[in-house]
């Protein structure tokens, strides 16, 4: 046991450093594996978000988009299970005190997953997924969590959801019934933003994301304003109004520089070092 005795020779010192090397290598390898898994989760999550947007705009003329939403959610749930499988696979690397050691490396994927999960949840229930619901989506069949869900990742994932919802509102506004859908989304996002405001002092990334949410809100309010003004000026039949709305939206999209409100995810593709 060279570690327990005083190191008084070069050999004993080198022996100790040898074990440090193994320990550090082991740590770095594990971290790399987790960063890779987190990236896989991110990629799959983005695909789910695209899928949801795609199916929701497929409907075209259907006035009731409820069946559409349920179809989209059913497809998304299959893919979400795939991600849950990835998290289950990471479980072994994250047992005991290890989870918090690698939390920063796992969190980009986790946040993206929460964004996709909460988007599907919104389309199904028109409500915000709760902390407990997200945590229980990351549990095994016996209800044991793969790892504890950090509050910060939950809130930041939801904050990204607001950006997706605004994009969803904008793209559905030109469809029949889209205007009331858009204002419904607006009310919902405004509610989320108000709820999150109180937590910004505790999470610096949340503050940045709140600013992005404000921008998204501003954009959709501009559209809603344009529509309200036009429809009050002329007593137009609904289909002509739909036309005007479609034009306004495409103007917004080309000239308004609408990006859907994303903060670049920090640490997503770097090696996971703290960069703040």
């Amino acid at each position: 046991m060279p570690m327990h005795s005083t190191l008084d020779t070069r050999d004993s010192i080198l022996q100790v450093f040898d074990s440090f090397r193994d320990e550090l290598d082991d740590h770095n390898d594990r971290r790399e594996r987790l960063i890779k898994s987190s990236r896989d989760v991110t990629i799959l999550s983005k695909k789910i978000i695209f899928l949801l947007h795609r199916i929701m705009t497929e409907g075209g003329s259907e006035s009731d988009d409820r069946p559409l939403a349920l179809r989209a959610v059913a497809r998304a749930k299959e893919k979400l299970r795939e991600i849950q499988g990835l998290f289950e696979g990471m479980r072994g690397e994250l047992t005991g005190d290890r989870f918090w050691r690698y939390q920063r490396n796992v969190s980009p994927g986790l946040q993206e997953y929460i964004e996709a999960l909460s988007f599907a949840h919104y389309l199904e229930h028109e409500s915000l997924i709760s902390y407990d619901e997200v945590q229980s989506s990351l549990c095994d069949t016996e209800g044991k969590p793969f790892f504890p869900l950090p509050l910060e990742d939950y809130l930041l994932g939801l904050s990204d959801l607001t950006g997706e919802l605004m994009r969803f509102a904008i793209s559905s506004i030109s469809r029949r019934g889209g205007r009331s859908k858009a204002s419904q989304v607006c009310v919902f996002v405004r509610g989320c933003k108000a709820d999150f405001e109180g937590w910004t002092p505790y999470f610096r990334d949340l503050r940045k994301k709140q600013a992005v949410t404000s921008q998204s809100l501003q954009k959709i309010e501009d559209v809603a304003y344009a529509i309200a003004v036009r429809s009050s000026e002329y007593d137009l039949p609904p289909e002509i109004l739909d036309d005007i709305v479609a034009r306004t939206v495409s103007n917004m999209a080309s000239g308004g520089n609408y990006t859907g409100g994303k903060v670049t995810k920090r640490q997503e593709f770097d090696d996971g070092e703290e960069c703040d």
Partner: protein
Amino acid sequence: MDPHNLEVINDLLDKDVEIREKIKDQVTEFDKKTRTLAGMLNKIHSTPSDKISSLLVSVRPVLESCRETIAALAELVPPNQFWRWKEMWSISLRNAVFSATLVEYLESGTLLSLPQVSDILGIQEEWKDRFVLTAEDYLHGLITLVNELSPDKNSIFVKDLFAGFAMLNLKNDTLRRRYDSLKYDIKKIEEVVYDVSLRKLAPSSNKSSA
């Protein structure tokens, strides 16, 4: 957001805020102690060799007083959350490692191992998911130690440590940066020693021991 969920979130947040505040208080204490230690140990450069041991005797109790703070920190950290909070005290802990290893080196000319430093700081085995001395913190302490020792008088020890560091595959982190900058410092000092001795400017006998 529904009221139950708000409650869940605020409860989690309140708990974390409370833990953070309490840890912060202990870290302030810890920091005071390690500053005192650093101040005392600073004197080794101006203390004649025959007075060194009495200086070290006075350092010991301060070093041992860190145990109390460390125990309080271990008590505050929830199970399995060591890595979540450790950055709050890592600077203080690294300074404590530095102080402990410097005292030992001055007394016996040997290097304290990581478990020995843990013992001196009173870190218990059963705290391992709440408070441990990690290899990284220990190695940071050693770099500070090498920084403090003048290489001309401690060249074998410093070289052995350097041989050790050279074995590690350090990632691009602070440990790596400190190790790299130390290499340049030492090279610079070696040049000074060379210049001074070449011109016979150095005194022939050494008054201090570090």
